[in-house]
Structure formats: C-alpha cells, structure tokens
C-alpha cells in the first residue's frame, strides 16, 4: 500500500534539500489557493507542470495520483454549472448552465489540479522519513515530528495485521453484506486493530526505554548541501512573488 514509488526517482527536485522543497511547496500552494484571476491561475498551472517536469515523473504515475481529484472535478462539473445562479450561458434541454457557475468550476479545477501537482512534484517525491527530518529542521515541534514518523512506521505493520485478520474471517466463510453480523464483524476487526496497536505501543515504549530514551528526541541531521538549493529557492520565490503581485495589480 505504501509504495512511495515517486520517491525512488533521481532528478533535480529529488536532489534538492527536503527543507527547500517543503518551504517551496507551502509558498506556492498557498499563493495559488488564494488567487482567483484566470490569467494568473493559468500561469500557476504552467508553473506546476514545469515542477512535475523537473521532477521527471512519468505521466502514468502522476495521473494515477491525480485520479481522486479528477473524479472530484468531474463531479462538480456535473452539478455546479447548473445549480449556481447568475447569467445563463448555455441551455441544454431543461437545464441552464450559468456563467458564474462555469467560472467557479473552472477556477476550482485549475486550482485543485495545480495544487496537487505541486504537492506531487515537491513532496510526494520524498519518503515520509525524509519529510520528517525536513520538518524537524524547520523547527516543527519534536513531538509532532515524532508522531508523524512513528505513525508512518507502524501503518504497514498494522495494515498487514488487518489483512491477515480479514483473510482469517473470509477463510471461515465470512461474506460481507449489509447486515448486523457484518458490521459487528468489522467492528471486532477494527477493535482488534486498536487493541493490538495499544499493546504494541506498550512494548515499543519499553524498547525505547531500553535504548536510553529519556524524553528528548535526537536525530541524525544530514543537510544535503547542493548549490542548486539557493538557486531553486530564489527562483521559486521570485516567480511566486511575481504572480502574487500580478494578481493584486490586476484588480
């Protein structure tokens, strides 16, 4: 389930300092989410595509990851243009598409797809282990970083436990349906996951104590020095600033 396939690549983006990538992703995403002019949004879309290109990701994996948002986009195109009030644009039978409705849909589409592409290009290209290190160096509270890394570590373990429990249920003739027996069985399976998680937490805590843990988190910092870091950082910031200024002046 947790394949982290995109993190395996080797590109300009993969070689950048993860901190730089996290900061850039934040800056670009929020600037993008806050703008609304179509011309500017179009430029952001190009910007996002350029980042995906720089990360040398194949179209296949990127499209696969965009699937949830594409489904969402299709859904809003089916509903919003027709339910939104305002100046009619096209009439299809009894339905009327309104101009503001279509504009809203278009805006959401560009924004959501671009934000996700920025996310994919800059963040999905690192493992959560690396992301945790970057957040630590960006002064995110230790507890939160630890929580993130520990949760990440045990998802695979618990996922496997769940698969085995479900398999055991199916081997004993369990066929899920819409009935109380099925819901109760799923509740027991989920409950068992929580119980086992809690027992494991006790053991892991003990293991940490045995390795000298006393409440302070220490970590191996390995900042990757790369001449590209400042260049990339400056480039992305300058471009974003330009787009933000354009957005403001346009009004």
């Amino acid at each position, binding site marked *: 389930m947790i394949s982290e396939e995109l993190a395996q690549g080797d590109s300009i983006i993969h070689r950048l300092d993860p901190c730089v990538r996290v900061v850039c992703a934040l800056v670009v995403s929020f600037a993008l989410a806050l703008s609304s002019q179509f011309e500017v949004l179009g430029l952001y879309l190009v910007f996002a595509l350029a980042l995906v290109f720089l990360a040398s990701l194949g179209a296949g994996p990127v499209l696969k990851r965009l699937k949830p948002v594409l489904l969402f986009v299709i859904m809003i195109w089916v509903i919003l243009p027709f339910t939104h009030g305002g100046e009619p644009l096209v009439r299809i039978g009894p339905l009327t598409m309104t101009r503001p409705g279509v504009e809203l849909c278009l805006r959401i589409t560009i924004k959501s797809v671009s934000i996700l592409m920025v996310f994919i290009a800059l963040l999905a290209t690192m493992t959560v282990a690396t992301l945790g290190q970057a957040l630590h160096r960006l002064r995110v509270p230790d507890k939160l970083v630890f929580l993130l890394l520990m949760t990440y570590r045990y998802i695979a373990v618990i996922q496997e*436990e769940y698969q*085995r429990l479900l*398999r*055991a249920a199916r*081997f*004993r*003739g369990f*066929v899920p349906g819409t009935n109380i027996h099925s819901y109760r069985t799923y509740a027991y399976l989920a409950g*068992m996951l929580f119980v086992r998680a809690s027992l494991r937490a006790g053991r892991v805590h003990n293991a940490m104590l045995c390795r000298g843990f006393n409440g302070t988190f220490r970590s191996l910092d390995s900042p990757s020095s790369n001449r590209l870091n400042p260049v990339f950082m400056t480039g992305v910031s300058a471009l974003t600033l330009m787009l933000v200024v354009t957005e403001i002046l346009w009004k």
Partner: protein
Amino acid sequence: MTNPIIKLENICFAYPGSTVKVLDSLDLEVYAGDRIGMMAPNGSGKTTLFHTIMGLCRPDAGKIEIFGRPVSTEQEFQAVRSKIGLMFQDADDQLFCPTVVDDVAFGPLNLGLSADEALDRAREMLSTLGIADLETTITHRLSGGQKRLVALASVLAMEPRVLLLDEPTAGLDNGVKDKLVKIMNSLDISYVVISHEFNFLTAITDRVFSMENGKILADEEVRVHQHEHMHKLGNHPHKHH
C-alpha cells in the same frame, strides 16, 4: 486410485509488481487420507502455496482442481473455502472475537447455522480438543499455546475435509507440541503441515516435501537429503541447499 482432493497443475505465481516467480510450474496432488509435511527455507513460497490453494493468490498460469472440480473464480473458491481449513502462521491473526466460544462459533454462523446450533458445535469442538474450560475466556488473554489450540478448534468447527497448517508449532514449547501431535494423530482428516521442525513433522506426517525454485521437490529426494544431514552434521543447525 481415487481422484486427488487438491490438485495443482503447472501453477505459476508472482506477486503483483514483482517479476520473481514465487511458484513456478508447480504441481501438487493431495489425496484423501494424505498426511503431508512441508519443510523449506523462509521465503520459498510455502505460505504463498497455501494461499493459492485457498484462492487468495490467483495464479498467473496453471490449473487448480479442488474436490475434483476446477476452481478459478472468486465464487468457486468461496464455495470450497469453508471445506478447507487453513490455520495461520500466527494464531493472533486468527482470533478476533471477544471470547473463545464466540470465535469458534464464528465459522459455523457464517455457514448458516442458527446461533444455538453454532454454539453447540463450538462447545463440542472445544471439549474434543480438551479445552472446554476456556469457553468464556477473552481470546487475547490466552497463552500462546492456548491460542494455537483455540485457532485449531475454530478451523475444525467448520468441519473441513482437509487441513492446511502453516507452522503450527512456531514459538511453542514441547508440552503444547506434544498435545498437538496427539490431536493431529487422532484426527481422521487429510492435512498438509508446514514446519521448520523435522521431529514434529515426522511425528505427524507420512511424507515430507520440500520446495525449491518455486517447485515442490519429490518425496524421495528429500528423504535422501535429510538422511545425509543426520549423519554428517548431527545436532548442529546448518543450511539446507
């Protein structure tokens, strides 16, 4: 000669996304009354083989026949699944109901028995295995050996025609192992048992198979091999090639 109850022919299987054939043109026939042991290194595909028989791993090529009928779709597997009792490598994975009796009755309930009938059958099974006193115990509070026996009871409560046991002795002490040997020898059912312990296998099975390169090694080869080992290396652990 009667028909085999489980027949695998030319089965190939690789996990999705991997090119390694875990099972590679594997053939296997299990007849009624067979008591087969299986001993092979980690990662040689023993568990995968069991899962293929149960229809959980779908082979990329080859034919599976169970109880004389070819099975390939989920519906077909579902129909035979309850007649094959698979016991997992880790008993913890198999026990998810709050109490022992709930757990043993879970299978019979799924078979369509009424709550009372299921309860009766569960109790009967527990007393057959000599653990009737555990009936209302909370499953996750059981000891390792007890868990194993309850898992076996849960599987047997489905009244399967053949048992597949995946390392039933892992982590158990000799006391529980002995009990298992007695129980297995008293059962009137065909089974295939995976184990890393030669002594346990020879005590409960008639033949021991091995696996290599995704194929099952014939009985004879394995015998010879193990003989040689007994003489040369005695008690010391060593690697099988």
